[in-house]
């Protein structure tokens, strides 16, 4: 018997697993150009701030691509992590806005106004860490991730998944909302934490600050896309796909499955948390209406519209759905819910892979054919009909 191994290895020395394929680099370039150059040039300050707000949801959608699209874990509680990240940031900003000087008319100066209204006379213990900016920046990510770890570890160890996990995450979103609304004195209640002014002395309400924050947000989003891309093309990304398909086979290939699912869920939580913190900074408040069931499931539709398997698709989907929402609810508020409902049904029934799927299946093959036809002279003999594409 000959030894075919050496002959074979020679033929595979080309990198068959690049960080990004040319098409993906192009997509990234296009997205970065639109977010960081085209939109800032084309839109006024108000509209740009609005786009910045939409883009904070794109962080959540990005996490859902890894967690739902790749690992098959549908979370209906991403608002929880978005909210926790946002609240952590809001607590810091609120404390800075509630200096003794600013709040000297209160019966207890130096604490947030809503605490004073609710007859609370000292800052609660869990507000204390948010006096420090470095600690806050750490907690913005750490609190949601630890919470995600707690939820997912308990459940994935017991092999809970699928619809069951979705229901539990939804219940957690509901519980957290009721808790925040009910504990008005500690959380600001239904109004949330409002009247935020400065970040470490820098006024975030000015137009200049809003523009700067928009670019910080855009940069962070690109960074998160790159991080997600790293995970996606690593062996871990392929294990997640394998898990979604045949969990038992992965388990009997020697993997402790729970750890991988926990990782995917926590990564999604971390992305959502960054989005939440950027939301607070750009919009200037945080409230329970971004935590509950409705926003959580709406964030899933952004991912579904864009394409649950595409990082770039998720960002485009977020922008598109929010743009539609703003446009429709300004002019035809009655129609919007019909439209959103139809979007949920239509995407699931007709386009399960969203816009990215449409692009990949319909547009990209056509484009490649065009490009090839332009490059090469027309062949003398027509290829057989239905020949498989390369």
């Amino acid at each position, binding site marked *: 018997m000959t030894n075919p191994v050496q002959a074979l290895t020679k033929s595979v020395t080309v990198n068959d697993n690049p960080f990004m394929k040319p098409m993906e680099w192009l997509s990234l370039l296009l997205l970065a150009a639109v977010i960081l150059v085209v939109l800032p040039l084309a839109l006024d300050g108000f509209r740009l701030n609005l786009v910045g707000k939409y883009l904070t949801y794109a962080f959540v959608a990005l996490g859902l691509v890894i967690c*739902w699209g790749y690992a*098959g874990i*549908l979370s*209906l509680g991403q608002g929880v992590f978005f909210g926790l990240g946002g609240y952590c940031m809001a607590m810091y900003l609120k404390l800075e806005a509630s200096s003794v000087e600013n709040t000297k008319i209160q019966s207890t100066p130096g604490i947030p106004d809503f605490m004073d209204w609710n007859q609370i006379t000292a800052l609660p213990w869990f507000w204390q860490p948010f006096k420090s900016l470095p600690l806050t920046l750490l907690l913005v990510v750490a609190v949601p991730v630890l919470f995600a770890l707690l*939820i997912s570890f*308990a*459940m994935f160890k*017991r*092999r*809970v998944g*699928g*619809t*069951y996990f*979705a*229901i*539990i995450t*939804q*219940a*957690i979103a*509901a*519980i957290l909302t*009721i*808790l925040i*609304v*009910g504990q008005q004195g500690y959380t600001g209640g239904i109004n949330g934490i409002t009247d935020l002014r400065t970040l470490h002395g820098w006024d975030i309400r000015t137009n200049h600050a809003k523009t700067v924050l928009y670019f910080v947000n855009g940069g962070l989003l690109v960074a998160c896309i790159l991080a997600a891309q790293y995970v996606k093309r690593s062996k871990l990304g392929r294990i997640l796909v394998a898990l979604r398909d045949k969990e038992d086979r992965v388990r009997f290939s020697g993997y402790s499955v729970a750890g991988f699912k926990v990782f995917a869920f926590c990564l999604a939580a971390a992305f959502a948390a960054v989005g939440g913190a950027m939301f607070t900074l750009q919009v200037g408040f945080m409230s329970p209406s971004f935590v509950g*069931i*409705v926003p959580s*499931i709406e964030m*899933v*539709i952004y991912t*579904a519209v864009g394409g649950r398997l595409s990082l770039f698709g998720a960002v485009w989907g977020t922008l598109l759905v929010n743009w539609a929402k703003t446009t429709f609810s300004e002019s035809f508020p*009655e129609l919007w*819910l*019909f439209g*959103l*409902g*139809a*979007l*949920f*049904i239509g*995407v*699931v*029934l007709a386009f*399960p892979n969203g816009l990215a799927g449409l692009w990949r299946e319909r547009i990209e093959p056509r484009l490649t054919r065009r490009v090839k036809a332009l490059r090469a002279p027309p062949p003398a003999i027509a290829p057989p009909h239905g020949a498989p594409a390369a």
Partner: protein
Amino acid sequence: MFGDYSLGDLGAIFAMQGFAGLILFSVYLLMALGLAIIFGQMGVINMAHGEFMILGAYVTYLCSTFFQSYLPGLFPISFFVAMGLAFLASGALGMLVEWGLIRFLYKRPLDTLLATWGLSLILQQAYRSIFGAREVGVELPAWLIGSVQVTDTIEVPINGLFVMAVTLLITGAVALLIFRSRFGQQMRAVMANRAMAGAVGIDTDKVDRTTFGLGCGIAGVAGSAFTMIGSTGPTSGQLYIVDTFLIVVFGGAASLVGTIASAFSISQTQSTLEFFLSGSMAKVLTLLAVVGILMLRPQGLFTLKVRR
């Protein structure tokens, strides 16, 4: 905590609280029954379940308004007519939805969840467009108003008693239907082994459609019963969806006894806690306890151990 109350007062308070808990139990059980059939038997997550309930409530509202205007003599029994109509309306809509949407998604449970959420948004907006954003109430006939004086300090409202009686009746009917009727037998056969059931000549598509319709119809009856103790708005259904799913899951998804036990324990816990804490904290603690137990015991209260 109990210092301010005499022993008799305490007893009365607990009795009243217990009764409030029983009404809550009826409400939860009615909501969960339809879902237990759809989710427990078919494994389908219907996020629009609350909206099917609300449809029943609106049908009841229309029906009682109609009786008041045109057949005032028969108004006292309008509720019974309304309940039948609510069942038919929600059931018919359910079968339509199964035919037009659900049947394409049986192999994709997570997608069913998203699609039915879309459906719930559409239904909510439809209710808002037709009935207005404000909540509507159903006027009760005279015989449902008032309360029964049990002792000096304990009195129970008649409408609450009536809802409890309706719950008892429907639960009994569902149990009979599942465990005694031919349809129930077919339904259980399809859920146990779809291929085999098909092979022995059961029309599985028809069973699916009827099962889904039945679950939705029961939701409609539940909605109808609720009009006796509360008002109805376009988004009322959404408020219940989390509780309802938790009850079904907590009970062990495929078990009717489990659903009853779970509705009972959750409602009693919540109404007892409400006495000591604010309403929102009682709710938070109850739901947290349920979620916590489900994390440790995901199979719920009642399950069978079977070979995978």
